[in-house]
């Protein structure tokens, strides 16, 4: 009981610290829309690095990555691969997005798409897909926070209360401070989770096996199938490779990543951030150690939920003091909250600017739009919270599912950035065909060759765009605003 109180005490202290920093970051910029959404387009290298890194380093990374290495073994390297490949898209498209945003005042993907293709419905479609993908992702973060609280306090703080606590804090500073709040809190949360992850990874393998090398030699002796592909569960190379490609190159299509391109103070800043980005993937390495450590520990009595392996190891196996468990909980909450803050912020902006703005709020003043965005932060967080209470599905599957849908914006965005010859009708048909194919393959039929459904949907998407371009010659000269 007193142990639980120490854990709760440390964690609440941490939550209060984050809240304080987040509210203090309010500054003078957040009253304008550009300030609230994009930090006035003046965000520099260090803050941008932590914003972009922390939003990828989510509850999924903290719980799901050790879960994967525990359950599958080597296929967990998928996470290292896709995280370190994401900067390729940042490098290639970030500076162009940032430049266009500065010239034309874009703040969302929908802005750019609607303006480039001279079509409001297309912007609305992009917005709807965006919100549909962001809300499940936010749900994952909230569910992660609840699960963590419940497990680390032995149920003293139940799932619903833990999830609520973490997300009230996040919603409060996002509501008040916008992107500035996210930037400064992510700096703290980033440092917090990096140090906790490395500490736990090294000390768990040290305590149980006497070191990382010894741990792997013992796994090699008894269960070598965990250390190479196809892993313990027989994941084929086709699925592995296509999942990496979808996650890595679809990653930059995520509105919460894409929209940060607008906040950079220059294209050069984005290039610099992308250079250092692969280093963020190194933070996951110790978390994979924890999962591998669990392979032998739970060999006779497997866990029913793989994504609880980190918690079980820290709490039941390694016998850490309640102080360490409290820090572990804070670090893991940091991962969930920093990503959640970005997601709630982005989902609200996309909803208001791309979906509600051109329909129900035509001609509204900037002040009204900022205020609607703020309230949407609270509304969408609440919806995601209710989803989290209802649906405890596996974290990774939800994440992969949501990623697949958003990737379908790819040809549309490439067209707006680099290929002005792509026409509105073709990219629209492609995105619709791709999204439909993705949903069918993911939820109704099984995907051919066992590949990730997102790849098939993308191939169909590109195929439809190409066919449309080829067969329907433009009747009028296409309007391509420069």
């Amino acid at each position: 009981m007193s142990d639980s109180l120490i854990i709760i005490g440390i964690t609440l202290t941490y939550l209060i610290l984050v809240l304080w920093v987040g509210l203090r970051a309010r500054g003078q910029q957040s009253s304008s829309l550009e300030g609230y959404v994009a930090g006035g387009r003046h965000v520099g290298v260090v803050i941008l690095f932590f914003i972009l890194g922390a939003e990828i380093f989510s509850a999924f990374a903290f719980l799901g990555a050790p879960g994967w290495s525990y359950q599958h073994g080597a296929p967990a390297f998928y996470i290292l691969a896709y995280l370190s490949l994401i900067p390729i898209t940042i490098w290639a498209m970030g500076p162009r997005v940032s430049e266009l945003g500065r010239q034309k005042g874009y703040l969302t993907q929908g802005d750019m798409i609607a303006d480039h293709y001279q079509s409001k419905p297309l912007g609305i479609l992009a917005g709807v897909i965006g919100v549909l993908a962001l809300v499940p992702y936010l749900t994952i973060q909230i569910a992660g926070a609840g699960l963590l609280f419940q497990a680390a306090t032995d149920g003293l703080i139940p799932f619903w209360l833990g999830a609520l606590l973490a997300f009230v804090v996040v919603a409060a500073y996002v509501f008040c401070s916008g992107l500035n709040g996210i930037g400064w809190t992510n700096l703290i949360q980033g440092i917090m989770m990096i140090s906790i992850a490395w500490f736990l990874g090294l000390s768990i393998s040290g305590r149980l096996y006497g070191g990382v090398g010894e741990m792997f030699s013992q796994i090699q002796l008894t269960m070598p199938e965990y250390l190479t592909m196809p892993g313990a569960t027989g994941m084929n190379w086709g699925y592995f490779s296509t999942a990496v490609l979808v996650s890595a190159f679809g990653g930059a299509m995520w509105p919460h990543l894409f929209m940060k391109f607008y906040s950079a103070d220059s294209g050069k800043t984005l290039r610099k951030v992308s250079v250092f980005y692969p280093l963020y993937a190194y933070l996951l390495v110790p978390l994979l150690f924890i999962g591998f450590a669990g392979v032998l520990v739970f060999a006779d009595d497997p866990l029913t939920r793989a994504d609880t392996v980190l918690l079980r190891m820290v709490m039941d196996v390694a016998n850490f003091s309640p102080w360490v468990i409290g820090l572990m909980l804070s670090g893991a909450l940091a991962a969930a909250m920093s990503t959640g803050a970005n997601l709630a912020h982005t989902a609200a902006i996309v909803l208001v600017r791309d979906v509600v703005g051109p329909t129900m709020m035509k001609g509204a003043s900037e002040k009204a739009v900022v205020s609607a965005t703020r309230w949407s932060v609270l509304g969408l967080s609440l919806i995601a919270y209710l989803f989290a209470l209802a649906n405890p599905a596996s974290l990774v599957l939800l994440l992969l599912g949501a990623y697949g849908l958003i990737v379908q914006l790819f040809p549309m965005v490439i067209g707006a950035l680099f290929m002005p010859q792509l026409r509105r009708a073709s990219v629209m048909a492609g995105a619709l065909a791709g999204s439909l194919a993705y949903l069918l393959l993911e939820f109704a039929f099984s995907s051919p060759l066992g590949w990730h459904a997102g790849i098939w949907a993308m191939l169909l998407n590109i195929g439809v765009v190409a066919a449309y371009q080829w067969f329907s010659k433009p009747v009028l000269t296409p309007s391509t605003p420069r």
Partner: protein
Amino acid sequence: MNKTYHLLVGLHFTLCTLAMIWPGALIANRIEPTVLGLPFLFFWYILWMLVLFVGMWVAYVIRHGGGRHE
């Protein structure tokens, strides 16, 4: 210069991507030799993350300059 630069950056990106998925990762799909205590396949990913980083850093310095000291 400009064309060569983009070609080389593109090649670097393609190489790093293929090294981490099929077929590149096939050649590293074994446990021995262990490096730094890690099974070879694990080390392979750690290695390519570093290669990607170094390549991008070089590309950045060539294009955007290395700051005041260079």
